[in-house]
């Protein structure tokens, strides 16, 4: 258990440090990069909680796909190259980078090697409701996740599709608006 607390503290420190980095860096690219670290440390949290599938999805979708989009936008918007270079001179940056890297590597390797197992809280015990079984803690593997998503939680999952339609519609409306304005 103490090893778990150690792992948790290390990842938590990393998450907080990278979270501060997102808002503290003056250069948008560094903010985006520390957001990646933040998202990766969240993935480690999911691993500590035995949520293998969620952790993988977090890395693939957030750290992979969404952050690449972020970086594209940031690099396209910040055409001011001088701005990018001046903020490279933070003296303590490398030191912090090395420390964060060590913490991250230690946490990741620990989890991979030891396969941390935290006994989930027994809060949901005693209920044989299907709903509770599916949403019970510790059922973070892919099968349970798929079961929850396409059976127990099918309803909110389907409602999400309406949100996506509404959001696309909104993006079209607002996007077209700005283009029409520039034509005026």
């Amino acid at each position: 258990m103490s090893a778990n607390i150690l792992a948790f503290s290390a990842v938590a420190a990393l998450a907080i440090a990278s979270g501060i980095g997102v808002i503290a860096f003056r250069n948008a690219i560094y903010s985006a990069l520390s957001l990646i670290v933040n998202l990766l440390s969240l993935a480690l949290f999911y691993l500590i909680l035995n949520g293998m599938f969620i952790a993988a999805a977090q890395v693939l979708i957030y750290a992979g796909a969404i952050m690449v989009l972020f970086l594209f936008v940031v690099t396209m918007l910040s055409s001011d190259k001088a701005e990018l270079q001046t903020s490279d001179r933070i003296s303590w940056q490398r030191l912090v980078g090395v420390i964060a890297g060590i913490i991250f590597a230690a946490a990741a390797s620990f989890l991979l090697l030891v396969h941390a197992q935290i006994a989930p809280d027994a809060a949901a015990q005693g209920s044989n409701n299907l709903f509770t079984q599916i949403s019970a803690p510790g059922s973070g593997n892919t099968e349970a996740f798929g079961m929850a998503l396409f059976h127990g939680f099918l309803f909110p999952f389907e409602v999400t599709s309406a949100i996506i339609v509404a959001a696309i519609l909104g993006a079209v409306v607002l996007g077209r608006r700005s283009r029409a304005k520039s034509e005026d």
Partner: protein
Amino acid sequence: MSPTLIPLSSNDMWILSPEIAMTALALLVLALDFLVKRREIIAFVSVFGLVVPAGLLAWIVSTPNHPVYGFYGMYTIDNYAIFFDFLFLLIGAGVVLASYDFVQRYMRSSGEFYALLLFSLLGAMLMASSRELITIYIALELTSFPLYVMAGMLRKDIPNDAASSVRSTEASLKYVLLGAMSSAVLLYGMALLYGITGSTDLSEIAVALQHGFSGGPNSMVLLVADTFIFAGFGFKISAVPFHMWAPDIYQGAPTPGTLFFSVASKAAGFAALIRVFADGGLLNTGSFYLWGFIAIAAVATMTLGNIVAIAQSDIKRMMAYSSIAQAGYILVGFTAVAYQPSNQTGISGMLVFLAVYVITNIGAFAGIIAFANATGSEQLRDFDGLFRRSPTLAFGMILCLMSLAGIPPLAGALSKIYIFVTAWQEGGLLPWIVIIALINSVISIAYYIGVAYRIFVKNPLREDRLRVSAAISVALAVSVVGIIAATIFFQPLLNFGVSGAQALLK
């Protein structure tokens, strides 16, 4: 672990049919916008299409022993949900009618506006029907996303206000950012609640809080969860101290959008707030701190709303503070419920007050929109002498404002008295809160009467008569008839509210 699969039955689909019809209607309106460019047809379909979900709802209600729960208890169509569903359908019809001309003049993508409105109402209906935290959150986002877009849809400046389309964009951005923050706070509260109870299902949360939770009613983690959830919904209902967004966004958004925020967002927020706190058993923990927090929020909300409203010169800002104050009166009812969780009259009072508020606010805003269409102004000083320029518009608006102020014998007064009497009877500290509420009611008369004074007594700056289009006249007439009907048939409305409250507290 492989749990036994219980397949969905046709009953699940049947009780979901009003929402399915609503989705189909929203998609139909969206498709019509591409196919036919005639605005009349799109608006016509948007209003009369609402008959289909309303009819399905009425069909389900009229079937004896109709199924109440579906989707593993996540979705319900009890009397509480039915009360709100009808209210949301009424909002849809009222806002489409009131917005018809304004949308044409100042907002070019009219079909999208109606489609967004219908999607938002779909989310609101789901918020009233959901009995599970994740579903409630998803429904809340479905309600909110279209609102963020609506706030930024003003394309042409209102004639007398050169910066209005810039302010609309600003309002949209502010709304997105603050909305995202409030969602995060709400989710944090929900996550803590799930952490305590091990379930996201409201009835299981209620059981767990009663039997399985060792922390006691005043444990810090439960209080933080309560407070965060209240804060998340408090943003939607614009309760102080989570009201900061309302004046700027109400003022910046196109007026039909403002109307929609002031009724739909508020009604949906209260629907989910009451559902989570009552069905989830949060009120039953008997925490004095929770009660105190709600009481302070209620007092602060009505006092700040009413006092700041007096100083406004823009009528939309004034209505924003007025709507904050009205939320405060509803929270007085919630304070009574938090004091005595089995208090059915408290919840029914909140429901009825909300229904009357919605009907009245649609009328008041229809008047403001009609005025903006005709004169291009939303400043209070331009309302001077409106009576001589358009007597019917003046009378319609005044009736709505008087009902909002709670002047007897209008429905607004009856619902307000009902809430106050309910709270008074609880005893304890509640009579003091009611006294503050009464003082607030008196203060509120100042600015409502102020508008009436301008409209009837002051001399108009211009003498030309105002033309009011047919659609807005219908919206205003429906609202006025609604207020009068709610005044005369207050008892049936109250019975409807009581049946909703009973469904929640059984």
